[in-house]
């Protein structure tokens, strides 16, 4: 055990780890927001609620059906993604030609409905969700104790983030997607079904949020308001990074998580406002965001 700047390494690295975990959720959520914004030109306010629903699907699967974490990791994104597809078809597709403020308000309304429904059935208090057996325990690395589950969350989020980046930036399907973001009419003229692509993109972005929710379930309690507090921070993350670049969203997410973790060690009282403070600084120095194109 040693100390760094007067703080025991255990505490420093512990918070750094927690910061990285928060960062993985910021990255997954802002990634989803950026993908959805690119195709649908709306800010998905329901994103936080969909993250919360992902966690609840895992909770429900385990407690009512006895289905474990690993299956939930697959089932929850599919279920919530499917619900997302329905939402897109039923609601968002109808307001596509309108100004994006309507999309924001509509998804805000949907978020209220979802959060309200879950609060009715589960109350405001959190429900615990156990860490899966195979990831119990941890390793002592000498300078810190590394719980297995937390290591898994960070590693898996990194894999998912980079797989998404690869799919969008390096595959044929991704190139259609990028082209449709730039000019949907032209891409349609090439015989690609753009409306279906838009729907599936929304389902995919929402699925990412649900995936983050499942991963968050064993770390934080599963509660109906877990999404609404997080989504506002993610908005600040998105403002800082700018939504122009997929890699930008990933890097900003992780970096801000780390900064937040470090703030918890050195200035604990500022830890929950530091991301907003960084947003202010970025707006002053680089109004378009770190990776953003000027909008």
């Amino acid at each position, binding site marked *: 055990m040693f100390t760094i700047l007067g703080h025991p390494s255990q505490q420093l690295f512990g918070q750094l780890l927690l910061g990285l975990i928060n960062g993985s959720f910021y990255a997954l959520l802002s990634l989803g927001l950026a993908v959805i914004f690119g195709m649908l030109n709306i800010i998905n306010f329901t994103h936080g609620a969909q993250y919360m629903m992902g966690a609840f699907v895992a909770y429900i699967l385990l407690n009512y059906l006895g289905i474990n974490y690993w299956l939930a990791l697959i089932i929850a994104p599919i279920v919530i993604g499917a619900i997302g597809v329905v939402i897109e078809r039923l*609601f968002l597709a109808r307001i596509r030609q309108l100004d994006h403020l*309507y999309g924001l308000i509509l998804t805000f309304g949907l978020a209220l409905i979802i959060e*309200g429904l879950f609060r009715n059935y589960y109350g405001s208090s959190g429900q615990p969700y156990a860490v899966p057996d195979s990831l119990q325990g941890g390793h002592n690395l000498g300078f810190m104790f590394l719980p297995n589950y937390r290591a898994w969350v960070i590693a898996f989020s990194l894999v998912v983030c980079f797989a998404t980046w690869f799919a969008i930036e390096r595959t044929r399907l991704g190139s259609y997607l990028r082209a449709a973001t730039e000019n949907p009419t032209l891409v349609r003229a090439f015989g690609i079904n753009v409306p279906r692509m838009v729907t599936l993109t929304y389902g995919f972005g929402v699925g990412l949020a649900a995936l983050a929710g499942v991963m968050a379930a064993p770390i934080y309690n599963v509660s109906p308001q877990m999404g609404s507090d997080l989504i506002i*921070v993610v908005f600040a993350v998105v403002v800082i990074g700018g939504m122009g670049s997929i890699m930008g969203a990933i890097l900003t997410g992780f970096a801000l998580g780390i900064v937040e973790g470090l703030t918890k060690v050195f200035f604990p009282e500022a830890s929950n406002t530091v991301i*907003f403070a960084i*947003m202010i600084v970025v707006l002053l120095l680089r109004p378009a965001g770190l990776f953003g194109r000027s909008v």
Partner: protein
Amino acid sequence: MAAIDATALPTARDTGRSTAIAAIVMVVFLVLAPFVLYPVFLMKALCFALFACAFNLLIGYVGLVSFGHALYFGWASYLAAYAAKSWGMPIEVSIIIGTATAAALGVIAGSLAIRRQGIYFAMITLALAQMMYLVALRSKLTGGEDGIQAVPRGRLFGTFDLSHEMTMYAFVLVVVLAAFFLVYRIINSPFGEVLRAIRENEQRTISLGYRTERYKLIAFVLSATLAGLAGAIKAFVFQLASLTDVHWTMSGEVVLMTLVGGLGTIFGPIVGAFIVVALENYLAPFGQWVLVIQGCIFVACILLFRRGVVGELAHRLHVRL
């Protein structure tokens, strides 16, 4: 950016007779109402009506969506309550202190938020409001979870005893009506014309030689100030300043009121505020369902009823309200 369905909006400078008639009906209703309805309910509705009018100034006339208006409403409420309770200031000075606080916050938040457009603007205002919510949660001044309770109303100008509900109502009504008139004058001034031009086409307005950034900032500060005035009065109506007033749900509520009444209409936010406040009164026993019902109204308004109550009425009657 044409933010709002153009047919729902008053486009001409002169809104003429229909506005005058509607204004008279409104004033008569508000003067007679406390003899029939509960004055505290009416005062609450009036505060929210002013709040919604302030919000509408931005969304309806400049096309800027602020998702963080609770910041000005709530912090004005805190400062007014604090001035009255801890410094022993009279109510009129406390309200001015609260309103000035909101104006100062509006200058800071506004000059940051107008650096980005469209969807980012909404996210920035929301994030700044959340930051100040977290500050309110920990600050000594705000009393954290307890808020500032038992705010003394005292005597207006040292003479009128405001502990009497009817006297308080008269005071609130006069201030709010004056503020409504101010909003009306702003909208129908050359300044208001420029704001509308920015909403319709910012690039073209710039090319005509207007410094649109400056106009947007002034509109933002005016909106924040009036929202603050509403919050400061509210602190005295309920004799309470609390965290609910700075929470993001409050920012959502003001969007709801404006939307229900009609974006970009003069009377829409007022009608919308009365509808939403009445609705909450009746729905209070249903507890958590309020959130679900509010959400459903949002969705229904956006999909089916974008003009809002007043906008729809004005459209049917071919007048501007």
